[in-house]
């Protein structure tokens, strides 16, 4: 006899349920409960995915429903993969992803480690630190455009105060070199608290007796940190990196509000570029191919990462 989840649900169903509905086996009732979910999954996830794959081989444009649609083979894929501008947006995305995750993990873990040390006002500090992530990304984007304003922005004045340079002599979101960093700073400001909370959960899950045993063995604080704290928090940290990685790969609203992808196309992340192709230029077939390439990339990377995460958890 098979042992599928459905069979297990069927086994767990009390006999009285089946007996009340004549003519239906337990297995049928189990299917009855599962079917709406399966239908929803098919309708909302699987069908659009198959449809997108189909469109990616065509020259379809959603704004020209009456135009004849031709199958053009792999032409869309070929165009995307040989387009220099697309590779530049991939680079911009990679830069954004790497540095935001790097800073968020570094600062988030440090903050969690500090907060985890019991001190007066600990709860108040935790509340204050998590405030940015409670704001809407659109609000944060708008808010920071003012902070970055060269003439009146507090950020520029802060830098000026610390370094003595003229606040209006540099433009965070208008300068080709600084703009990619401007979005990294804002995302780090907003989402470091999230990483901190996950790290804090990890730190608080480490039983005290492990540290007590280490103390008895006369292990130094440094050694305790590297051999107990880091290995035991690592699965949590990796989970935080996974969440932030997926979120930032599809980053859109915050960056659109801040830089609009500019100056030029310096901060045009793949999601912004994809939106322009799909809903401004209306190259639906091309954009579908683009979306499939991104999907395969994210899915591939996430699968490798989840395997690594599971290995770490097994240790």
């Amino acid at each position, binding site marked *: 006899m098979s042992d599928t989840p459905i069979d297990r649900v069927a086994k767990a169903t009390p006999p009285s349920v089946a007996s009340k509905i004549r003519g239906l086996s337990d297995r049928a009732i189990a299917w009855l409960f599962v079917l709406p979910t399966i239908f929803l999954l098919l309708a909302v996830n699987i069908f659009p995915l198959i449809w997108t794959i189909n469109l990616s081989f065509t020259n379809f444009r959603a704004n020209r429903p009456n135009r004849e649609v031709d199958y053009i083979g792999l032409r869309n894929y070929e165009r995307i993969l040989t387009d220099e501008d697309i590779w530049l947006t991939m680079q911009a995305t990679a830069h954004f992803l790497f540095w935001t995750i790097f800073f968020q993990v570094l600062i988030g873990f440090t903050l969690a480690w500090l907060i985890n040390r019991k001190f007066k006002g600990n709860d108040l500090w935790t509340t204050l630190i998590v405030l940015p992530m409670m704001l809407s990304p659109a609000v944060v984007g708008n808010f920071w455009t003012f902070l970055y304003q060269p003439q009146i922005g507090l950020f520029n004045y802060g830098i000026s105060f610390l370094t003595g340079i003229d606040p209006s002599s540099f433009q965070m979101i208008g300068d080709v070199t600084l703009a990619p960093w401007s979005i990294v700073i804002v995302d780090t400001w907003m989402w470091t608290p999230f990483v901190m909370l996950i790290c804090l959960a990890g730190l608080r899950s480490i039983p005290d007796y492990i540290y007590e045993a280490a103390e008895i063995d006369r292990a130094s604080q440094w050694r305790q940190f590297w051999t107990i704290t880091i290995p035991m928090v690592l699965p949590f940290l990796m989970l935080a990196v996974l969440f932030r990685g997926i979120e930032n790969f599809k980053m859109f609203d915050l960056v659109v509000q801040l830089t609009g992808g500019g100056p030029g196309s310096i901060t045009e992340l793949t999601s912004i570029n994809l939106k322009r192709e799909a809903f401004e*230029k*209306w190259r639906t077939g091309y954009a579908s191919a683009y979306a499939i390439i991104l999907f395969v990339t994210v899915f591939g990377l996430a699968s490798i990462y989840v395997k690594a995460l599971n290995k770490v958890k097994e240790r």
Partner: protein
Amino acid sequence: MKSAKLLAATAFVAASGLNVSLASADELTLCWAAWDPANALVELSKEFETQSGHTMKFEFVPWPNFADRMLNELNSGGKLCDLLIGDSQWIGGGAENGHYVKLNEFFDKEGISMDDFAPATVYAYSTWPKGTPNYYALPAMGDANGWFYRKDWFAKPEIQEAFKAEHGRDLAPPKTQMELLQVAKFFQGREIDGQKRYGAAIFTERGSEGITMGATSAMYPFGFKYENTPGKYDMEGAVNSADAVAGLEFYKELYKTSTPPGYTDSYMEQSLDAFKSGQVAMAMNWFAFFPGLYADPDTGGDKIGFFVNPGQLKEASTLGGQGISVVAYSDKQDAALEYIKWFAQPSVQKKWWSLGGYSCHVSVLNDPNFADSAPFAADFLLAMDGVMDFWQEPAYAELLLAMQKRLHDYVVADKGTAQEALDKLIEDWTEVFEDEGKL
């Protein structure tokens, strides 16, 4: 019996009248951008409501989202708008994709003649294919990109003196693009009334159409054009001609030397803000904003002056403005056409101008008093004589986004040269026209 017949007849007439008034009393939705002229149109339309019995509802969308929102609405066959005052560049898509009702038959039936409207506006706002007598809109709002300046600063003796000492001529509104740059540079970083001021507010916006509208205001006078032969899509040597390259290089110099700090993504609102807050001596913007600017209590009145976009090798201005169309998906097309018939009347057009809308009707524009009716009216006439517009093709959005990218990359992000930017633009546009089957 006689009285019974009379009573029956009266009842029939009354009932018919009631039916007519019930059937014709529609609620029409007019869609447009959210800006000053839209408020004037609300005021103007009250007269239509009184006369027709219809009620008017308005859907005004802020400019940055206007194209996205309205084109999505049209592409999805939405019934939100019965009447749409859409951008001139949408006319090709509106006609070819069946979004707009063709108005020729209606115009003929109602005696509305396109000869009653300024030819440049009929060409730009109403016809598709361009220049053919196939009308999909009635010219509603004439507009072009123009300039305004701080008249009070220009008049200051110490400023006049300093300018003369520097350039050997009187400081006056510029007549050429090179003069414009000279004046803008003169004001850049200059202290006036104890505050640091800047030269000019220009368009650099990346997301929608800003930098294209701004840069073409410099490129057209330098000789930029889209095709060598209209309708042939032969862009090589037109889009990237030496004159076009010079125009683009000029715009970059204007941006680099004469704009306020952080002016990297600026369009209409930012230009108005920069001027009203006293940051800049000059600013470019659409004529549509000029009545509001003149009425501004702080920087309007005697403090503001206006001038048409300066020429260089030729006189030319970037076209703005829109025509009013009936949306093909509307269930209330008859009432919408009634609105257009009412709007086309000379008396309504006169009132439209008096309320702050830019009429395109010759009875208004050719009125001997028109040029003196507002401090910017004469410049408006000059501008409309030399307007040039972006592609109005069905694929205009793709064409526009390509230009936005290439111009912003070069002007703001310092990527490559002007020649490279325009060469790449031709590549982008060629690809679009090939996809469209036009090349």
